[in-house]
């Protein structure tokens, strides 16, 4: 392989490490409890038939081994802290360390969700201030912070629509969803009892407004729209779209996954959106943690406010905050307690670190970065839609496919160049999609390294396609057998000799 092109990464020593169970042996300990200051209780006697015999194969290891184990595992991960993470629609931006520090302040981290309101004013104030910031950012009237993630927010938003339409006499039967939408959108509609009707994009990669007009009727509750959509294209006829829905009594839901393209530049509430969710783990920099936790606040217009999940925070006459549970029209709770509060703290810390000027600059840089990549790569990779890009750009593998090299192969080869791959094969409307979202967090130098890597891979696809098709070559494991994993699933470790448990 042509190592000379790889500027970002070198190979380094990488420790091997087995499963923690394979390190276990009886009598090793990583804990010591404080002495018991009340009489001991024989649990077998106290619990009788409901007492447990033993804890099976739970590990027994020392503290030193735990530190090595998890540190070694951590070094096998790629992370934003190591470099660019150009995953389209995922907004993998810098996660500021101050967010982590303030979220761990004892008064916040040790607060019990049922502790009385008079000793919870600080936590409630965080939620209140964050809510106010998010309302101005989205241009909406009311908000709930309860949903735990984006898809959970979608469910909450569609439940609000359902409840509102029900209150008007008919919840309706269908939700329209563009063919470029995230898979969570149709899955959410189904959970809320709606049938899904597909809406085709036009040749510019936007909603086909005449098709929408034809499909919209009194059976349709509304449209779930991502804007900018998953092609990174702003829906320029957004208000026409909203008008068509509203004329027939329907509502416009906006999936806020791509809000990083809009903050401080335009507001969904101003362009006709009735209800939307935000992903605090995308736009508002809360860390992705290898798959979560997220947080998916839902903001809506006045007409939907009575239906918000309960409780909602209210300010009393004396200036103190309280939870209002007396919400007769509420769709109910979507989660116990008040949502992923720790993420609310982090998102507010991010907002305060930016201020209005920082938030706007962030959006501008995110869009600038995506357009820079588009400009630099459009000769080497096919650009299926010519419409202007916002915060992300979608290419296809159609040039490279002529040599049998597909988007998944290019992605794996990018790993050898020291990058995390872009989003592969999504959106579904582009065959062989290469979806790149740089975010604002990348310097010109890092962007240039990505551009150089992508260009080098395009050359390799031409000259030595097998090199690309067999990538990655430098990782601690090669391509893994996913088919085998699904055919005979091994979802837990088992000891060689005896069976586990009791």
């Amino acid at each position, binding site marked *: 392989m042509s190592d000379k092109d790889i500027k970002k990464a070198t190979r380094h020593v990488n420790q091997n490490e087995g499963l923690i169970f394979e390190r276990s042996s009886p009598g090793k300990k990583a804990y010591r409890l404080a002495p018991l200051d009340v009489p001991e209780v024989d649990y077998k006697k106290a619990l009788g038939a409901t007492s447990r015999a033993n804890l099976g194969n739970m590990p027994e290891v020392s503290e030193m081994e735990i530190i090595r184990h998890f540190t070694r595992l951590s*070094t096998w991960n790629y992370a934003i802290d190591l470099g660019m993470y150009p995953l389209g629609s995922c907004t993998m931006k810098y996660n500021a360390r101050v967010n982590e520090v303030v979220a761990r302040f004892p008064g916040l981290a040790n607060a019990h969700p049922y502790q009385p309101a008079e000793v919870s004013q600080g936590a409630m104030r965080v939620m209140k201030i964050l809510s106010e910031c998010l309302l101005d950012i989205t241009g909406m009237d009311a908000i709930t912070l309860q949903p735990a993630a984006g898809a959970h927010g979608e469910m909450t938003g569609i439940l609000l629509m359902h409840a509102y339409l029900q209150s008007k006499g008919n919840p309706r039967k269908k939700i329209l969803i563009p063919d470029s939408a995230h898979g969570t959108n149709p899955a959410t509609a189904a959970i809320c009892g709606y049938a899904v009707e597909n809406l085709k994009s036009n040749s510019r990669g936007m909603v086909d407004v005449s098709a929408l007009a034809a499909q919209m009727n009194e059976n349709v509750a509304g449209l779930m729209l991502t804007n900018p959509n998953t092609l990174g294209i702003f829906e320029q006829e957004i208000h026409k779209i909203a008008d068509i829905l509203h004329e027939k009594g329907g509502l416009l839901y906006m999936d806020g996954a791509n809000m990083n393209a809009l903050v401080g530049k335009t507001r969904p509430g101003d362009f006709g959106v009735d209800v939307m969710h935000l992903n605090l783990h995308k736009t508002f920099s809360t*860390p992705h943690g290898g798959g979560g936790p997220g947080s998916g606040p839902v903001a809506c217009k006045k007409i939907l406010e009575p239906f918000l*999940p309960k409780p909602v925070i209210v300010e009393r006459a004396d200036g103190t905050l309280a939870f209002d549970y007396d919400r007769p029209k509420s769709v109910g709770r979507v989660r116990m*307690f008040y949502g992923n509060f720790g993420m609310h703290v982090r998102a507010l810390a991010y907002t305060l670190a930016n201020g209005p000027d920082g938030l706007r600059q962030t959006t501008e840089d995110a869009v600038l970065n995506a357009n820079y990549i588009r400009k630099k790569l459009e000769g080497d990779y096919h650009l299926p839609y010519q419409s202007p890009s916002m915060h992300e750009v979608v290419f296809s593998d159609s040039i490279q496919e002529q040599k049998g090299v597909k988007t998944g192969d290019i992605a794996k080869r990018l790993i050898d160049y020291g990058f995390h791959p872009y989003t592969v094969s999504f959106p579904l409307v582009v065959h062989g999609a290469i979806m790149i979202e740089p975010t604002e967090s990348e310097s010109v130098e890092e962007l240039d390294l990505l551009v150089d890597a992508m260009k080098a891979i395009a050359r390799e696809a031409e000259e030595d396609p097998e090199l690309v098709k067999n990538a990655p070559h430098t990782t601690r494991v090669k391509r893994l057998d996913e088919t085998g994993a699904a055919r005979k699933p091994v979802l837990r470790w088992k000891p060689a000799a005896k069976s586990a448990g009791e």
Partner: protein
Amino acid sequence: MRYLPKSPADRAQMMREIGCKSIDDLFAPIPAEYRLNRDLKVPRQMAESEIIDYFHSRADANAAGYALFLGAGAYHHYRPVVIDAMVSRGEFLTSYTPYQAEIAQGTLQAIFEFQTMVCELTGMEVANASMYDGSTGAAEAMLMAVRLTGRKAAVVARSVHPEYREVMHTYTQHQGLPITECGYLGNGRVDMADLEKKITSDTACVLIQSPNFFGTIEDVAVVADLVHRKGALLVVSIAEALSLGIVKPPVEADIVSMETQSFGVPLGYGGPYAGVMATKEKFVRQIPGRLVGETKDKDGKRGFVLTLSTREQHIRREKATSNICTNQALIATMATIYLTIYGREGLKELAGQNLAKATYASGEFAKKGKVLFAGAPRFNEFVVQTKDDPQAINQRLLEKKMIGGFPLRWHYPELGNASLWCCTELNSKEQIDAAVKAVGQ
């Protein structure tokens, strides 16, 4: 702005290369009438030192240094420092969902270990990579039982956490899935006669919690026997997972939905926590959420991947087993580290301390007043009935820097002046004695 790695010259250079004159050229696709021509109404940009001060002020307006006797679905246990030392590593903290397995083996192996530990603890055969929390997990378990049985109704014990039950209603309200509730006996356990009446040929599942909301440990085997005779599935929800250190796992259940907050996750005013779902191997294709599986690479080396993803929304769309995408991976990693620290012996010892504290405290309360639901084993929670309104008692306690039990009247009016108390390894005898004295005043 200090998070943005560009100089003004960088920006100008990039714009020249793109061929745009001003940054607003790039925002031209947004119709002019919708462009925001003012600053957002958010607080001004703050220095890091100001952010620290700001959140110190917020934190100081919350309780600090209070003795805490609340449980009710969120438990205060000691968190070994190793947990935060490990999950603060950027490679765990700032990595994405491990779709690109070759550069995500750390997260994948940690989650595989999590799944294994959840199986060991619950007695189930498979576990997923996490759910949002215990309440949504319980709701999704119910929907899973509907898919498995083709039946369209459910029975839930009233002794299940009230907020879990509210979430179940929210999730099922448009599924044509009526939920009936079944009562509890004087010993706090599920009323079997009532349950037998409530189960019909439409019942997909019965959902109970153990230890239940009153802290009482259910006789899962007896409930399972009845439920299975009626052709339904049994879902067991576990809110206080530390109980599994000494309580027999619900091996007779078909699905277990567990909240793992007790395993080293901060109370954090209610979240983020992590739920997890575990079940029998034969039901795995109906489980929601992500699964990590073991496999081999081209050279035969062991590795881990996300697997059976044809159940999930990004492949199956409206036919998926759930709409869940982002889960609670980092919280599951916290739980894995916690479970590794305490391990096979420590969990037993720690759960034993919780039992001893609650046994002592309930004994002391019983000397002065009434502790309900005697006659069945409990773990670390118990219900105290008082002459005075618990709200008034809690006000008294607050002045003495104590946070009393969770008043039950709102959710269980039939219990009168009752509240749910919790004692863990963090409640000293001194604290307990002071609380008993203050309540008895």
